[in-house]
C-alpha cells in the first residue's frame, strides 16, 4: 500500500461524484477531502482483515475491491462506490476482509469525519440511510435466492423433480459487481 497526492480539488471532484456525498456543498466536501487519506493498492493487497476494526469508510476512485468472508466473496466494489459504511455504526464490526482485486486507488474517510459531515449537512445522513437501506434490500434478495436454492436442493435430494421457478440467481447476487 503506498500513498500519492491528488490535489484537494481533484479529491473534491472525486467525492462529488460519490452518491453518498454528492449532495454536500463543495466547500464542505473540500474540508472532508482535505482530511481523507489516499491509498494506492496493488492486486491482492489487503485493506483490512477479519478481526480488525477499520473505523473508516472507503471510496473507490479507480479499480475493483473485493469484500470477503473466509473464501466467499460477499461484495465486489467498483469505481465511484463506497464500502465500509458499517464502520459508522456502533454495532460489532463485521468479520470481513477487504482487498484489491485489481490495481485500486482509494480515499479513506474516518468515521469521525463522516459524523462531522452528517452533523453539519443532514442530507449526508439521509444519503447514508438510503445507501444502507439499499444494502439491506440486496441482502434480503440474496437470502431469498439462497432460500430458493436450498429448497430446490432439498427437493432434489428427496428425489423429486422440478426446481422451483426463480431459482436462478437474482441480479445483485453473490459475485455480481454492484452497480452503485
Amino acid at each position, binding site marked *: 500500500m503506498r500513498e500519492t497526492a491528488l*490535489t*484537494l*480539488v481533484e479529491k473534491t*471532484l472525486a467525492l*462529488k*461524484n460519490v452518491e453518498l456525498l454528492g449532495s454536500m456543498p*463543495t*466547500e464542505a466536501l473540500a474540508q472532508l477531502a*482535505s482530511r481523507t487519506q489516499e491509498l494506492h493498492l496493488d492486486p491482492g493487497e489487503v485493506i483490512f482483515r477479519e478481526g480488525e476494526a477499520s473505523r473508516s469508510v472507503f471510496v473507490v476512485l479507480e479499480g475493483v475491491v473485493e469484500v470477503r468472508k473466509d473464501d466467499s466473496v460477499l461484495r465486489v466494489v467498483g469505481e465511484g462506490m463506497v464500502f465500509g459504511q458499517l464502520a459508522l455504526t456502533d454495532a460489532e464490526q463485521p468479520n470481513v476482509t477487504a482487498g484489491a482485486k485489481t490495481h485500486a486507488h482509494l480515499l479513506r474517510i474516518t468515521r469521525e469525519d463522516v459524523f462531522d459531515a452528517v452533523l*453539519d449537512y443532514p442530507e449526508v445522513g439521509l444519503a447514508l440511510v438510503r445507501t444502507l437501506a439499499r444494502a439491506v434490500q440486496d441482502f434480503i434478495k440474496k437470502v431469498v435466492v439462497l432460500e430458493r436454492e436450498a429448497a430446490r436442493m432439498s427437493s432434489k435430494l428427496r428425489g423429486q423433480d422440478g426446481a422451483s421457478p426463480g431459482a436462478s440467481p437474482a441480479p445483485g447476487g453473490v459475485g455480481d459487481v454492484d452497480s452503485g
Partner: protein
Amino acid sequence: MTGHGLAARLASRLGLPPDEAHRALLLGLILFALTGSFTLARTSRDAVFLARLPATLLPYVYLGVGAFTMAAALGVAHLTRRWPVRRLLADGAAYTAVSLLVFAAWLQVSARLAAVAFYLWVNVYSLVLFSQFWIFANSLSNPREARRTFGFIGAAGILGGLFGGLLAPPLSAWTPGALVPVAALLVVPVAQVARALGRGTPEAENRPCAEEDRSPSAPLRHPYVRWLALMTLSAVVVTGLVDYQFKVELQARYHTAGDLASVLGLFYAGVSLTALAVQLFLTRALVRRVGAGWSAALLPAGLGLGAAVTIALPGLGSVLVTRLWDLVLRFSVNRVAGELFYFPIEPGLRCRARNAIEAAVRGSDALAGVVILGVGLFAVANTRAVAIATAAVVAVSLLAWSKVRRGYVTELARNVRRLQLDPAGARVSLREAGLLEEMTRLLGSPLERRALQSIEVLEENAPELLRERLGELLGHRSPRVRARSLALTRVHGMALPPGQLETLLRDEAPEVRAEALRAQAALLGRRAMGDLTDYLAATDVRVRTAAIVSLIERHFAAEEDPLRDLIAKTLADGSPPERLAVAQALGRRDPDSLHGFLTPLLDDPDPAVRAAALVSAGQGQRREHVPALVEALGGRGLSEAARAGLVAFGDRVSGTLGDYLCDPAVPMGVRLGIPQVLGEIGSQGAVDALFRYREGGHLRLAYRVLKAENRIRMTNPEAVFPRGRVVEEIARDVERHLSALVHRHGLADAAPPRPDWLLRLALGERMDYAQNRVFRRLGLIYEPTEIHAAYRAVRSRDPRRAGAAAEYLENALAPDHWRLVEPVAGDLGDDGRLRLAASRYGLLPLPPAESLEAIIRSDDHWLKTLAFHVAGTRGEKSLLPLTEAGRSADDPWVREAAGWAYPILAAR
C-alpha cells in the same frame, strides 16, 4: 403582424416572458372591446335619459339600479358556483351582445320607459361583465405577473374607452340610434377570445366559487374583506354622487339628445385619453414604486379635494374636474391597485369575497340615491349640498383604505404561508397523530421494553396520562420499569399511593431500592446521615450511590463537614458510577462551596464523569470552571456536555463567550461551538456578544453566528438587534450574490467532473448562501416566521409562490430595504439581476481569464483555490504572476492549488 409577433414585441418592450406577453395581449384585446362597447352604450344611455327625462329623477333611478342589480347579483353568484371562469365571461359577452341589439330596437319605439330600462340594464351588464373579466384575468395570473401586465391590460381597456368616446359623436351625428348596435358588435369577439385564451388553462376551467372551495365563514366575517368591501362601496357611492352633480350641471346647459351625446362622447374620450396617459406614464411606475396600498389612496384623496373645491365654488367646472379625476383614476391606477388587493385572499374565499363586494357595489348605486334623497330632506339637493355629503363619504373611504392597506401586508404574509405546500418544517403533534392512545395502551404491556418506551414518549408529551397509571407501573414485574416509574414521581412531583414507598424501599431489586431512596428524599426534604447509615454501607453500588446522592441534594447544613469527607472519599476510592452520580448530584444543588469538588471531576479519567462534571460546573456557575467548559467545546465527545454546562451558566458567561468568539487565537473548533451556546442562552447579552463578531473569511463560523442570532430572534421576542448593522450586512451579502452571479455568467458551461464545472457549482452555492443569509438577516428585523415562509416560496420553482412572496416582501419591508434585497428576493430573472449588478455595483460579466483573476483577488479561499486550479487546467498564462504569488499564501488550500498550477503555466 401575427398575434405571436405582437406578443414577441410586447415581451421585448415590457421585459415580459413570452407566455405572459401572449396572455397580456389577449386579455388587453378583450378589455379593449368591452370598454369600447361600454363607452358607446353609456354615452347612449346618458344622452337618451337626459334628453327624455329630468336629471332630478336620477336618485330614483339609482334606487332602481340598486334593487335591480342586487337581484341580478344573486343570479350571477349562482352561476359562479356552477360555471367555469372561462364560460362565465364568454357566454356573458354573447348574451350581452344579443340584449344590446334588443334594446337598440326598443329605444326606437319607446321614449321614457325604454330610456329607464336601458339605464338600468347598462349598469347591470357592465358590472357583471367587467367583474367576470377581472376574475378571469386573476385566474390566469399571480400578483407579480399582475403587476407587470395589468398596467398594459388596463391601458388597452382605456384605449377601448377612447375608441368608443371618439366614435360616439360622429355616429350620433349620423344617426343617434347607431350607438347601441355598434356597442353590441364590439362585444361579439370577446366570447371567442375568452374561449381561446382559457382553453387548457386549469385555473380558467375551475369554477370560481365552487361549493367545495367554500371556507366555513362568510366572506364579510373576514375583517380584511369587510374593510375592502367598505372601501369599494364608499368609492362607488362617491362616484354616484359626483355623477349626479355632473349630470345636473350638464342638463342645465345642454337640452337635446344630439348635443348631450356629442358632449358626453367628447367627455368620455377626454377621460379615456387622460386615463391612457396616466396608465402609460404613471400607473406602472407608481404601483412598482409605492405599491398597491399607497397608489389606491390617490382616488379618495383627489375626490376629497374635489368635494372641497365644489363646496367653495359649485358649478360645472369644479364638478367636471372631480368627475374627470374619478373616472380617470378608476380606469387606471385604481383598477390595477384594486385588483392586487384581492390576490392575497385564499382562493375559495377570494371569489366569494368578490361576489359579496360586487353585490355591495351594486347596492351602492341605491345608496347614492338614498344619500341624495336624504340631502333633499334637509336642504335643496343642489351641487353644493351633495358635495358636502360627498366629502363625508370620502372620509369613510379614506378610513377603510387605511385599514385595507395595513391588512394587505398581513394577508400577503398569510398567503405566502398558505402556499407552503410541503409539510417540511411543520411540527406534527403526537396528540394529533393519535399515537398517545397507543402509547397509553402499551403502558400495560408486561414486556419491559414496550412499557419503558411508552413511559419515555408519554413523559415528554402527556405526563398527566402517566399519573393515572402510576400504581400499575410501580407494581410492574420488571425492576427497571418500577425504578423508572419511581423516578417519574420524583421529577414530576407525583404523589405515591399510600404505603407504596415503604414497600419499594424493601424491593428485592437494588435499583428499585436506590430509586425509592431518592424518591423518599424528595418527599421528606432534608436527610440526616444517621438515617442512611445502612444504605451508605450497602454492598450494591446503586443503593450506596443513591444514599450519597440524596445527601448531596438534601443534607442538613450542620452535616456539611462529614458530607465533604464522604464526597472526598467517594471521589478518591469510588467506582466510575459513584463518581458519575456525585458529579450529577452536585449539578442539582444551588451554587455553593461544594461545587469545588467538580474541579478534579473535570479531569476525571472516565469520559462520562467528565461530561457530567461539565454540565454540573455550568450549574455551579464558578468562574474558575469557565476555561475548562469553553475548551471542552472544541473536543469530540464532550462538546455537547460543555454546551449544556455553558447554557446552564447563563447570561453571566455571554460576554466571556463573546471574547472567545472574536479571538482568532482561539482554536476554530472552540469558536465554532460558541454561537450555538449563545443562541441557547438567548439573552440580550448573547445577542450583543454575537454581534461583536465581524465576519471574516470563515464561512462556517459566520453562518453559525447568524443561525444563533435567528434562534434568539425566535425564542426571545424582547431581544433587540442592531438594525443598522444588520442592513449593512444585508447590503454586503447582496453584493456577494451579484458578484458570484456575474462571475458564473462569465465562465462557460462545463461538464462534470472538470474543475471549471466545480467552480461554477461553487459560485452557484455562494449565490445560494448569500440569498439565505439575506433572508436570515431580514428575519432579525422583521417577523421571522413570515420571512422564513417567503424565503421558502422564493426558493421554490413555482412562479405563483415566488410571485406571492415577492409581493409580500415588497409591501412588508421598508421601501429602501426592499430595493436593497430585490436582486435576491424579487422575480427579476438572471438578466434583471445582471442589469442591477452593473448599475448598482458596476459588476460586469468578464472574459473567463479576467473573471478568474477577480476571484483570485477576492478573500474567498475556496473560490480562490478553485480559480487557481481552473487557471492551471485552462493554461491561463496571463495569471502566472498571481499564481506565483499564490504559492506563498497563508491559506494551505490556496497555496496548494497555486503550487499545482504554477509549473503548468510556467511551462507554457
